[in-house]
């Protein structure tokens, strides 16, 4: 394959791809840093962060802010999203995945920017939602913008989005390898060298910008000296299973609230404010639920920072509030809340071990295992999760332990719900990636969009003789029959008409042929063709049953092959 490309073209492509990756890496990384900084600033100004809250002398002001800020934040988010976003919902990783997997355009830049602003306001005002989803989407926006350049590179839009996402994750977690793997595991879902190389460059660029230029501190340094007892690995696996159950329960809760939200007697614009009010009320008693909870995350790794009951209370509160916030329309991700819920639950599991007096290696490893095992099924990326642990903690023993918990969590959660929350969201929106990307693409391609062949139409009232003559004249073997209003009636074949006495063709109508409508997908079409013997299949309007056209069987097969070959080519492309 490669030998067909001249050296000059090859160098040109490599240069363009590298440059593209550098530009995208910088762009997405700077955007991610700006995002994090804006959120931190808002958290300080709006009295969400503990550091700002403790400096307020007036307790009344603090209580008022606790309730009013998330509520007003919700109001702003609701109005902004409903009024200025075409989709009228926050955008996130599922939209990026959809665009890449289906080779479809991303939602408009305007919607993306609106969604990003809404996410900053959401997290900034203390809503219980995460920052990584919006950052991933910002990376995708950057990729989308750059891919508008008309560069002679195959699969440019997909690669560009993957680069943006890789750089965003790389910057956000200070974890370039995790960024690179995330882009492949979640967004691209294949490992072609053509995409791998620029994604790596983008992830490294993000890391350099975050680490060297801005000197951002490592996100989560913990001290851990190793697993003391071999039986603990079984405990990690067990913890993985339990976290999978929690994780699935958490996702189902989000879906449930999301589905029930329209039944509320509150217009969509005001629903986030309602969620904000609930956050504020709970935060009066449990300030740990406000915002991203970096402090709580740290406390969970300190022995004795929480009582067992506090941990369980916080797990329940954080799950409920996150589901409410996301379900009612705050803009933000589930990743950071999952980290928090997981680490609290991991710490809780450790307190149980202490209770029964089982010798163990301390709270840190259980907290980290819980954190990752609960999060991994949600993003559907076990490899990324394991690498994040490695890059965040720089600790090999912790990584191995978390790895065990993560894979078991993923195994169970996959069976119970699906590959990830993103995939379930997409499947519910009609993009089912669970049976492979080709199936999703086939299901996404409408037959009506394929070239519709010339077809031969006769009227139901035409005489047999007339139809035979028309068919002979045109050299065809079959015709589609409509009535006077153009409504599809069936198909007649010349072979049936020849030698017939009856003047009417109605006796010889074939009505067993499959019939497509405007919504029939290529996947459905291909399935319907099983056992089909004719030349072409009629496409009939779904509303008034009038005939729209005929699609030749060969067109269906050609379209199918084109998609399959395109995917193979993309997934095996070098440069």
């Amino acid at each position, binding site marked *: 394959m490669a030998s067909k490309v001249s050296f000059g073209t090859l160098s040109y492509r490599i240069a363009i791809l590298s440059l593209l990756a550098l530009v995208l890496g910088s762009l997405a990384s700077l955007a991610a840093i700006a995002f994090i900084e804006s959120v931190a600033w808002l958290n300080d100004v709006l009295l969400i962060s503990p550091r700002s809250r*403790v400096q307020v*002398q007036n307790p009344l002001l603090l209580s008022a802010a606790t309730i009013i800020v998330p509520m007003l934040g919700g109001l702003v988010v609701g109005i902004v999203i409903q009024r200025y976003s075409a989709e009228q919902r926050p955008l996130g990783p599922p939209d990026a995945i959809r665009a890449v997997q289906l080779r479809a355009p991303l939602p408009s830049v305007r919607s993306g920017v609106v969604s990003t602003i809404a996410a900053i306001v959401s997290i900034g005002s203390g809503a219980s939602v995460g920052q990584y989803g919006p950052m991933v989407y910002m990376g995708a926006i950057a990729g989308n913008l750059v891919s508008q350049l008309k560069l002679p590179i195959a699969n440019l839009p997909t690669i560009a989005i993957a680069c943006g996402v890789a750089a965003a994750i790389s910057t956000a977690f200070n974890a370039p390898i995790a960024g690179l793997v995330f882009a492949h595991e979640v967004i691209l879902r294949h490992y072609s060298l053509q995409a791998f190389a620029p994604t790596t460059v983008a992830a490294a660029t993000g890391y350099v910008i975050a680490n060297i230029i801005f000197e951002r*501190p490592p996100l989560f340094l*913990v001290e851990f000296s190793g697993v003391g007892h071999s039986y603990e690995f079984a405990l990690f696996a067990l913890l993985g299973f339990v976290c999978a159950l929690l994780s699935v329960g958490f996702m189902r809760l989000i879906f449930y609230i999301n589905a029930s939200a329209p039944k509320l007697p509150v217009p969509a614009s005001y629903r986030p404010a309602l969620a904000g009010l609930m956050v504020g009320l709970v935060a009066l008693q449990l*300030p*740990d639920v406000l915002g991203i909870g*970096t*402090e709580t995350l740290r*406390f969970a*790794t300190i022995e004795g920072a929480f009582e067992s009951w506090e941990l369980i209370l916080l797990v329940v509160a954080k799950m409920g509030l996150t589901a409410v916030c996301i379900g009612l329309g705050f803009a933000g991700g589930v990743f950071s809340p999952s980290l928090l819920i997981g680490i609290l639950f991991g710490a809780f599991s450790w307190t149980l071990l202490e209770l029964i007096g089982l010798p163990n290696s301390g709270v840190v490893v259980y907290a980290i295992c819980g954190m990752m095992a609960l999060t991994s099924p949600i993003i559907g990326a076990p490899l990324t999760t394991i690498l994040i642990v490695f890059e965040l903690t720089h600790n090999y023993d912790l990584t191995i332990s978390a790895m065990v918990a993560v894979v078991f969590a993923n195994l169970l959660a996959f069976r119970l719900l699906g590959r990830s929350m993103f995939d379930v969201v997409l499947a519910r929106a009609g993009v089912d990636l669970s049976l492979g990307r080709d199936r999703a693409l086939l299901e996404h391609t409408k037959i009506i969009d394929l070239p519709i062949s010339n077809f031969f139409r006769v009227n139901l009232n035409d005489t047999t003789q007339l139809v035979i003559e028309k068919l002979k004249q045109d050299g065809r073997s079959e015709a589609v029959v409509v009535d006077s209003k153009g409504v599809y009636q069936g198909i007649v074949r010349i072979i049936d008409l020849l030698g017939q006495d009856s003047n009417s063709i109605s006796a010889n109508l074939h009505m067993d042929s499959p019939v497509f409508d405007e919504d029939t997908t290529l996947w459905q079409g291909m399935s319907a063709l099983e056992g089909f013997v004719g030349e072409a299949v009629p496409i009939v309007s779904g509303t008034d049953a009038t005939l729209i056209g005929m699609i030749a069987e060969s067109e269906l097969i050609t379209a199918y092959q084109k998609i399959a070959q395109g995917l193979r080519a993309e997934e095996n492309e070098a440069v």
Partner: protein
Amino acid sequence: MKPFNISFSLCFIFCLGSLSAQAEQQTLTIATWGGSYESAQQKALFSPFEATTGIQINTQFYNGEIAILKGDLVPDIIDMTMDDALLACEQNLVQRLELSKILAPSPDGLEPEKDFIAGALLPCGVAHLSYSTLIAYDDRAFPGEKPQRIADFFDIKRFPGKRALRKQPSAILEWALMTEGVPMNQIYDLLSTDRGMRLALRRLDNIRDHIVWWDDPKEPAALLKSRQVVMSSGFNGRFFDAQTRGDTITMIWDGQIIDWDVWVVPLKPKQTNVATNKFLRFVTQSENMARLAEHIPYGPSRLSALKRIGLHPQKKISMRDHLPTAPHHLDRALFRDAKWYARTLALRKNRFWGWINSLQVGEN
């Protein structure tokens, strides 16, 4: 208009100052911290100031906090910690200063705004030196393994013996959380929560029976020397001074907390600022700041002063290596968040004294 204004005000400061100095013996009362720090200031700043201007300097012992500003004997100038200075400014107890007119340019002619490090020029004062609060130990107490990390201060088993701590809710809270594995950039975030405060005090509980409290900054070195304690918190300059006098003291730079001292001018009725401005201008001149750092290893806040620090007058060792901000001291250093300190004073006192009182109840 502008050049005229500046030269006019400069003349106002100096001409008037020298006139009144001739007329009568003027004195300034400076509140400062006593001990080796004050004697270093005496040698490096106060005596030369007296010799240059003829204004007499009296010192008044000061040991922190802003109560001094509300009492009867309010000095002319106070050498305050940054958090107290911010608090005093917020409560309008000290003057707002037009530092650009008061301070001298660097010897290279650089304006103060560019020569002082960022954040040193405050609305109500000028941060003039950085000092470190850290743990030091008596080498004689540990003939074998020496304490090296801040966690060792809390490790009674490996390093037995009494520990001296300042009876104040500062530094120990940060150290307690450091030993829980909290990274430096999260210490104040975590101390901002009720949980963090609780954890810090819980850590102190572990060593409660081994604590000796001190108040005056000159006590730690004395406590170590007299073997009353084996480790003590204290200020790096004082410990250094004890070392130069032959004490067997070693400082643990791990977990050191760096803070700033600030010159502030109290609000006093019927006061003219001629002499105080003269003083501020003199003591913040690069050469003078560098000279102070040669006597005691506290880091000047001016870049031009940092470049001029030479040898210790007696020991003839390079003083630059002994500053809190020397690169080899910064591996695990915490820069105190003075604003946070100022705003959480009541809370910290509340929690700390609540804890102290619970100890006493426990003992009874």
